[in-house]
């Protein structure tokens, strides 16, 4: 499942946030009880199911399909899941997460297929070249991605030639960490440290850019 970056509605970030402390343990639901409750049509169980999965489902659908009709698509996923549970199709309650993931994948695939078909039909009718325009192709998102790329370019230009080669091997040539370390004579820690420094620099430049933008914005206002 391809993941693209979040487009936040306000205060666009152009760099990574500072990592939070070690994630706390998530409360593990009683899957069996939850599934039983849904099977009985218990509204509390339905609400709990929604509480556990809604944000995650929304996250994946947003990245892959965009904001259009997002609420409807999230709702559709829940309908599919609850109906499957009520029909007894979910054999193992512990596999509920996997089941939800499968439903989301199918929803994404179906939506993309539908979009392709619609565009193809329209294109034929209008006798134009067929292109599949992606929801990601919007001006705000483009600017954000251009900014990030520019920051990354500065990061790459600011490191030594050797470090740049290492980073390009990983990010562009898609070589594995093991291969890079072996061929470039690095330890795993050295490799991770290099990436970590590049990421820190990326964040630093992003903050400066954001700070500069907010200053300009205040000046204009």
């Amino acid at each position, binding site marked *: 499942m391809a993941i693209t970056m979040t487009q936040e509605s306000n205060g666009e970030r152009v760099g990574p946030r500072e990592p939070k402390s070690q994630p706390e343990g998530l409360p593990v639901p009683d899957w069996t009880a939850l599934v039983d409750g849904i099977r009985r049509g218990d509204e509390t169980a339905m609400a709990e199911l929604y509480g556990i999965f809604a944000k995650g489902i929304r996250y994946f659908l947003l990245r892959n399909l965009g904001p259009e009709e997002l609420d409807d698509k999230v709702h559709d996923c829940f309908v599919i899941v609850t109906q499957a549970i009520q029909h007894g199709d979910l054999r193992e309650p512990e596999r509920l997460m996997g089941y939800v993931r*499968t439903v989301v994948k199918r929803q994404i695939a179906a939506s993309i297929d539908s979009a392709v078909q619609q565009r193809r039909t329209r294109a034929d009718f209008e006798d134009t070249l067929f292109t599949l325009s992606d929801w990601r192709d919007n001006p705000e998102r483009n600017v954000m991605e251009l900014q990030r790329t520019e920051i990354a370019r500065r990061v790459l230009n600011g490191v030594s030639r050797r470090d740049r080669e290492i980073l390009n091997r990983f990010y562009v040539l898609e070589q594995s960490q093991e291969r890079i370390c072996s061929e470039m004579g690095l330890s795993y820690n050295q490799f991770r440290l290099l990436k970590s420094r590049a990421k820190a620099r990326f964040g630093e430049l992003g903050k400066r850019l954001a700070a500069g933008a907010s200053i300009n914005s205040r000046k204009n206002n």
Partner: protein
Amino acid sequence: MEQLVEEQDGIHPDLNAHGTEEKLELYALGRLPDSDRALLEEHLIVCAVCREKLDGIGGFALAMREAGKQQPEAASTRKLASFFRQPAVSMALVFVLVVIVIAIFSTERTEVAPSAALQLTAARGGMPSTVSARQLDLRLADPPAEGGPFRVAVFNAAGGTVWSGLAESTPAGVDVSVTVTLPQGDYFVRLYSVDGKTLREYGFRVRG
């Protein structure tokens, strides 16, 4: 609905199996192995912290990839590397190198003989000829009555001196070893006395 059910497998994911930075980065780049992807995605559905981490790591990783692609050295390196990695190209290069090496050595062997010998007389007429050789032994017949040592000089058709040296007289004539390889052309040999007086002149031809 049944199709969805069939996709369930026997894996029971740990809800608290938070993705490592490496895995999240590989996932953002689309390079996480299939064996890890499903579990990570299931976890991401329920874990807001890891989703937020993914946003940050993924933004950086994707930007680095895009910026790296735009770097001219990365692009050319990528193209060169992929071109030379092709087995056919590598083998062709090796073959060409072998052919070049063989050609160099075989060329030298066929065009230049190790040595040649020629007897010259001062009488005018047809020019004797020989092949090009690394060493040309000349016997200058009918030397002057007075003995040596003599100085000998070899000239090309343009009058340039290509070799000179001293030579001793023998009963058969004056023997000279010209130790430079003479290319195809006409050459003249002059025999001088020690005091520089021209005593005899000869000519010969090196055949192509």
